[in-house]
């Protein structure tokens, strides 16, 4: 009876994180439009419905119910692993209690390893590398840099930051035992206005490299404080490319800030990817000031399309079964949805924020991302403890 495929986008559309949520929604809408322009999936149009979860896990569960009422069988979310965790749990319960109205949760950015680890669920698929995998990429790269001697870890004081602090120490110890961890600090989330005290600590520790999973203002303020104090270290980050962060970083970040991502715009200069070039230019033109940041959203939509076409149906169970273990070609290599835990394995890149960028600058700052290294999909894999329970029918 449904003539459209509805995808519920559950992310903050109001409040402090609305900017990020809004940008994600635009990615989805834009990509859905492209699919529809090509005739849709199985002849049906894809419709993206934005729901505002106000960054709250409870709110998201409420929305899940609402979405189920409205005939939404696919939900997607990214901002906040706490919300992601609630949704994994919520979808699981929902499917158990309503077997004739099931839902699939496509996660495009919540990176807590637990979501594909101890909390893993058959109905959840993650299209972003989880934080352990990103750290794998960072530490692999760091291990090759001979001049790195002293590393400082500074992270936000919640599970995401705590995990990074823990895993980074393990991985570095294994890969480069000679590197000294000269500091390991957790700071309150979103509460610190003045990072100078932390910068003083970094400075007095003599660190040459900082690894940080910080995002948003907690990252910008940190880097800015460092640059004002004349701190001369390299920053290895997850989210320096996140919406608004390049603007906030400005010159303070140039030359020092690195990030690990599955994509940044200048990659189209390094690889042959005409379709991506077209997308990024069209997108940016369309949404003045917002950049095409999430390649993984395209991967997500493409894999969903492929799964539906393979399954020949939009029925959640069939589609989920088709997604399991699926592989797909991208301009950067093959990506695989690992069957064991529904974690996507994809190539990752380390890039530097530099005034010397190939073509595209970031948010009009005159500074852009330059690729340093590529990590192949297989090398990013980290073992998972997931024991997946699969539905019988």
């Amino acid at each position, binding site marked *: 009876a449904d003539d459209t495929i509805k995808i519920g986008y559950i992310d903050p*559309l*109001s*409040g402090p994180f609305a900017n990020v949520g*809004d940008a994600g*929604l*635009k990615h989805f*809408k834009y990509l859905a439009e492209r699919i529809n322009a090509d005739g849709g999936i199985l002849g049906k149009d894809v419709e993206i419905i934005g*729901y*505002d979860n*106000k960054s*709250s*896990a*409870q709110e998201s*569960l*409420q929305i899940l*119910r*609402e979405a*189920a*009422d409205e005939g939404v069988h696919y939900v997607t979310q990214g901002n*906040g*692993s*706490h919300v992601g*965790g*609630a949704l994994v*749990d*919520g979808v699981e*319960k929902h499917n158990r*209690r309503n077997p004739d109205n099931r839902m699939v949760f496509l996660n495009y950015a919540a990176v*807590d390893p637990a979501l594909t680890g101890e909390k893993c669920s058959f109905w959840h698929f993650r299209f972003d590398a989880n934080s352990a995998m990103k750290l794998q990429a960072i530490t692999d790269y760091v291990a090759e840099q001979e001049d790195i001697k002293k590393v400082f870890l500074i992270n936000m*004081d*919640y*599970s*995401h930051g705590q995990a990074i602090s823990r895993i980074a120490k393990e991985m570095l110890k294994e890969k480069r035992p000679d590197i000294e961890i000269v500091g390991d600090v957790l700071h*309150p*989330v979103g509460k610190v206005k003045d990072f100078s005290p932390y910068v003083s600590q970094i400075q007095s520790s003599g660190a040459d490299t900082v690894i940080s999973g910080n995002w948003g203002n907690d990252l910008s303020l940190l880097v800015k404080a460092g640059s004002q104090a004349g701190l001369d270290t390299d920053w290895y980050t997850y989210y320096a490319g996140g919406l608004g962060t390049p603007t906030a970083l400005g010159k303070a970040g140039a030359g020092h800030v690195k990030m690990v991502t599955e994509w940044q715009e200048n990659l189209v200069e390094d690889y042959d990817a005409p379709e991506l070039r077209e997308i990024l230019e069209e997108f940016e033109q*369309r*949404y003045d000031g917002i950049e095409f940041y999430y390649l993984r959203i395209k991967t997500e939509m493409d894999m969903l399309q492929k799964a539906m076409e393979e399954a020949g149906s939009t029925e959640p169970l069939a589609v989920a079964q088709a997604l399991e273990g699926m592989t797909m070609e991208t301009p950067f290599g093959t990506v695989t949805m690992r069957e064991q835990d529904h974690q996507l394995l994809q190539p990752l890149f380390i890039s530097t924020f530099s005034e010397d960028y190939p073509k595209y600058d970031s948010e009009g700052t005159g500074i852009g991302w330059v690729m340093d290294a590529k990590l192949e999909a297989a090398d990013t894999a980290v073992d998972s403890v997931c024991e997946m329970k699969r539905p019988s029918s």
Partner: protein
Amino acid sequence: MSQSQTARGALLWHIGIWALFALVIAVLPYIFTSSSSISMMSQMGVFIIFALSYNMLLGEAGMLSFGHAVYFGLGGFFTLHAIRAVNDGVWSFPLELMPLVGGAGGLAFGIIFGSISTRRAGVTFAMITLGIGSMVESSANMFTDFFGGESGISGNRVTDVTLFGFSYGPSVEVYYLIGAWTVIAAVAMYLLTKTPLGRISNAVRDNPERAQFVGYNTTIARFIQFSLSGFFAGIAGGLFAIMFEIMTAPNVGLVQSGAVLLMTFIGGVGVFFGPIIGAVLVTYMHTALSGFSEGWILYFGLLFVFMVMYAPGGIAGVLCVHAAPWRAGHLWRLLPGYLLALVPALLAIAGLVAVVEMGYQLSLAYDPSSPIDLFYMEVNATSLLSWLVALLVLAVGIAGVLGAARVVRARWAEVNRSMQASGAKT
């Protein structure tokens, strides 16, 4: 003789009202059947209890608290831990009574924090509650075993241990559980206002000094009232936990505390049923409006500011002002004025909505030049004309409301005068 008769009459009247309240709760799911409206109504029930418990402080005892969510949230966490314990087979306790666990938690912390904060009154009290609220919120980061860090604690409400044999998996069953508790808690809190403690709380609110000189220790009175209010907040939290099966740190935080303050105030602190109206309305706005418009916070803020300025007694206060003319049979004489005001008021609202929506379209939309649906019309936010029209409508509406307000005021004066005249006769 006649006095006991009127007393019996009053009793019947009260029972009737509460029976009606229960009946409405029972019937609603047959009218609004979708699962999202069931879940919205369940939330309303939870917040009715929460707002009523807040009014035990603000309305009844004059204590302005900025940290009431502490008791609500902790109650929820306790309940959820208890449910997990039952699921783990560590404990056995029927789900129907789980809110009592929350109540006990709320009560316990009400006693602990109440013994600190109720020693002071007024702004000092308010600031202490703000401080305690912030402390508890930030301590959620330290006690991750209890609060579960930023992902919170989740559980499964289907426990096998129940009194009535329902599974409480389906949300309708949970709705009825919440509904039953709403009736029980609301009646209990209503009766509480009629007890010596309730009266003394009023006395302490009005004039703490005098209350001492009629034999009461104001600190103790405030303290007991505060603890009991924590108990009911805890029950609300427990139901909330059952409903969502997840509790997170913000549930004990300032935003949640602010929300209950807003609800209670918008509903009206002066009348018992005020917070009920507030809880229903705010929950509706929160869920429904945020789906309709990106600007829901703005609308919400504007509504609130408007209420504070023109209806400080809340919605219940507005209703109560009309009770006297209604009883005197003069209400109909006010109607024409209101009808006259209605049209321009709708115009003004329409104008405002248009302006705000177009503003959001311009600054945030997916594609600013794409037309938006406004009042069954397609409006283009990038065209100057639509802005002019919207502003014009807004201006005309406001002018009309101001004009109509004069009429309404004149009508009121008339009604007052004739009520006074007839009052003088009797």
